[in-house]
């Protein structure tokens, strides 16, 4: 019977949420907005590329004066330039529209800016002057060096591949940090999407005066469990709907969106870190959702519950505001407090786990703490719902709930 009721609650809760137009409108708004942004970005990028290509192809004529002696006249001529000595006259020609541009190369172009005077061709068109003026210098310098590799080195365009070791083993570095951080992202995303739904879900029984009917028909544990599972299913659907356009965008429009190609094989998946990350995420989710249910059971309406819920969110995200401290000094008192205080523990511990500063025994303590407290909070939430949700219009005190009785003024009916 208990299993039957649990299934019934899940089917009812999921069915009525997914069956509502409002849910789909709100849910689809996000991917539609993402789609519109993607479309605009694609369109913009395509247009920009076309413009840049057109500008690259377009040739300009210019005059120049060179006080530095670095400009190679042959290079300048190839790019459409003519050397002059009278800057004022050249500028006057530009003003009169007889010449596209005039460049004044100073004695030391490395420290003093090159002056460019040109006929206005719009925001993007004007960029061509700067490009050509710079290209004249670069090509001239390359010609003088005579070695393309040396030119590249001179420009500082070099890459370094660092290999570090931990306990004699090659450390994964940044590529080892990203995979465990996925759990932090999932935790944050699911909680943000689902917890408000969880909060209002239990408030509904109270606000609609359904509590007594429910409590005499169904075990509150089955109801609460059913709601948690339902919210998770609904949230999963929401996440899938959100992720679908991202996936489509990456797979089919990666080039036009200028998205980097991600090579999953380059990431390092440390099994221990992944397991710890997953356990922290599940434990944290259970703790926060249980707490959201408990708040919903105690508060008379969504407005009153909102304040407490905000406090819960602040507790959760406060470690993110001190992320640099968490990463740079994980053993400081503040970070230790964040690590072991249950409501700041999930994010702090997940960050430290990803960056390798959470030891095995610390992870064990935090995970145990989260799961134990989740179980306690879930029981508390059930008890609060059982004895708190009957107080339809009043906030319930913990003293009342633990006494298992109601205030006289409310009970005398």
């Amino acid at each position, binding site marked *: 019977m208990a299993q039957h009721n649990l299934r019934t609650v899940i089917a009812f809760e999921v069915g009525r949420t997914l069956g509502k137009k409002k849910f789909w409108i709100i849910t689809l708004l996000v991917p539609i907005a993402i789609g519109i942004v993607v479309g605009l970005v694609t369109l913009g990028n395509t247009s920009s590329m076309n413009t840049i290509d057109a500008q690259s192809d377009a040739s300009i004529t210019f005059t120049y004066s060179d006080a530095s002696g670095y400009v190679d006249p042959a290079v300048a001529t190839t790019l459409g330039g003519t050397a002059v000595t009278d800057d004022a006259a050249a500028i006057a020609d530009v003003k009169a529209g007889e010449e596209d541009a005039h460049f004044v190369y100073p004695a030391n172009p490395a420290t003093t800016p090159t002056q460019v005077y040109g006929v206005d061709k719009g925001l993007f068109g004007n960029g061509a002057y700067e490009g050509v003026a710079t290209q004249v210098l670069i090509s001239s310098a390359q010609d003088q060096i005579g070695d393309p590799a040396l030119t590249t080195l001179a420009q500082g365009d070099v890459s370094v591949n660092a290999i570090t070791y931990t306990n004699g083993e090659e450390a994964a570095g940044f590529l080892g940090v990203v995979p465990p951080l996925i759990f932090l992202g999932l935790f944050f995303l699911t909680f943000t999407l689902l917890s408000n739904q969880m909060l209002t879900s239990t408030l509904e029984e109270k606000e609609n005066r359904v509590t*007594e009917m429910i409590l005499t028909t169904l075990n509150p544990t089955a109801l609460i469990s059913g709601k948690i599972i339902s919210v998770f299913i609904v949230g999963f659907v929401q996440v899938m709907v959100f992720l679908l356009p991202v996936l489509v965008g990456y797979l089919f429009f990666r080039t036009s969106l200028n998205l980097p190609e991600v090579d999953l094989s380059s990431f390092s998946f440390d099994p221990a870190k992944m397991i710890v990350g997953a356990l922290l995420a599940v434990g944290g989710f259970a703790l926060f959702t249980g707490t959201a249910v408990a708040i919903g059971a105690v508060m008379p309406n969504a407005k009153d519950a909102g304040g407490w819920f905000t406090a819960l969110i602040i507790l959760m995200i406060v470690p993110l505001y001190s992320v640099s401290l968490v990463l740079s000094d994980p053993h400081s008192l503040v970070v230790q407090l964040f690590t072991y205080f249950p409501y700041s523990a999930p994010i702090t511990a997940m960050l430290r786990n990803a960056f390798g500063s959470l030891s095995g025994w610390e992870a064990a303590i935090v995970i145990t703490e989260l799961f134990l407290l989740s179980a306690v909070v879930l029981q508390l939430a059930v008890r609060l719902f059982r004895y708190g949700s009957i107080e339809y219009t009043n906030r319930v005190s913990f003293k009342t709930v633990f006494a298992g009785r109601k205030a006289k003024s409310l009970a005398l009916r």
Partner: protein
Amino acid sequence: MTIAAGSLVHIENFRMDFAGTTVIEDLSFDVMRGETFGFLGSNGSGKTTTLRALLGIYIPTGGILHIDGRPFTPEAGIRLGYLPEERGLYKKESVLAVMTYFGELKGLSKKAAAAWSMKYLERVGLGDKAKVRVDKLSGGQQQKVQLGVTIMNDPELLILDEPTKGFDPVNRRLLMDIIEEQKKAGATVLMVTHQMEEVERLCDRVILLKGGRAEAYGTIPEVQNQYGGTMIRVAYSGEIPASAHYEISLRDRNYAELTLLDTVDEALILRDLVDAGVLIRSFTTSKLSLEEIFVSVYGDQNEMAGA
């Protein structure tokens, strides 16, 4: 603990304190299988508190509250139909969806729950509202849906807390008919109401709750007798003497109303009056109605409340 044979609901020495104040002091009664039992009392006398304690929503301070021989839980196996004083349904869902949901929770299959719901809705004139959201119904229509949810799956025990609250007279009659049908089908009914005519029509036995205790308990005739039961209205000449058997509740010139204080025969009273020299011109006898008893029991409380 002594449970009477045939008892479905057994309450013994029930006590309920809230924040140091005693609401129910010492209450004991049984509701027998198949009977309709009226649970009466003024506002604030603790009726709803008793029902909630019986159903495990409140934890009693003391005493025994059993249904079918044990404390009630939703898993206890008894088919319960409970219509609480605080009414409510999932307002954003359709009538049929809500009724089907509760039907499933009460052990019916989804198909059976939906079929039963449609049949019930047709009967109470809401057949065309099955797909309508609950909050689009009138208050009376919502009450009908709530009653439907209550009587789904042939309840063995119906607990109704002011069932006619919010019903117009026509629908009140319909509701009474439905309750009567449930009774005929074998359901035990425990009903809280302030409508004394409903009690007189439906209830086999009643209890009157006052000051946290049972003020009266038994069949309706027994309760009427407990309160003197009978009234003699007499037109007379002479002087009506005082007596331990009656109270002169009204005296106006040659007319008087005598409320009998015990179960003494009316004929004996009349003989005593004649023997005392009273010339009786005419007389009628009648039982006190439950409403009159209710007013006499709780009138002082209401006066105090109104003061």
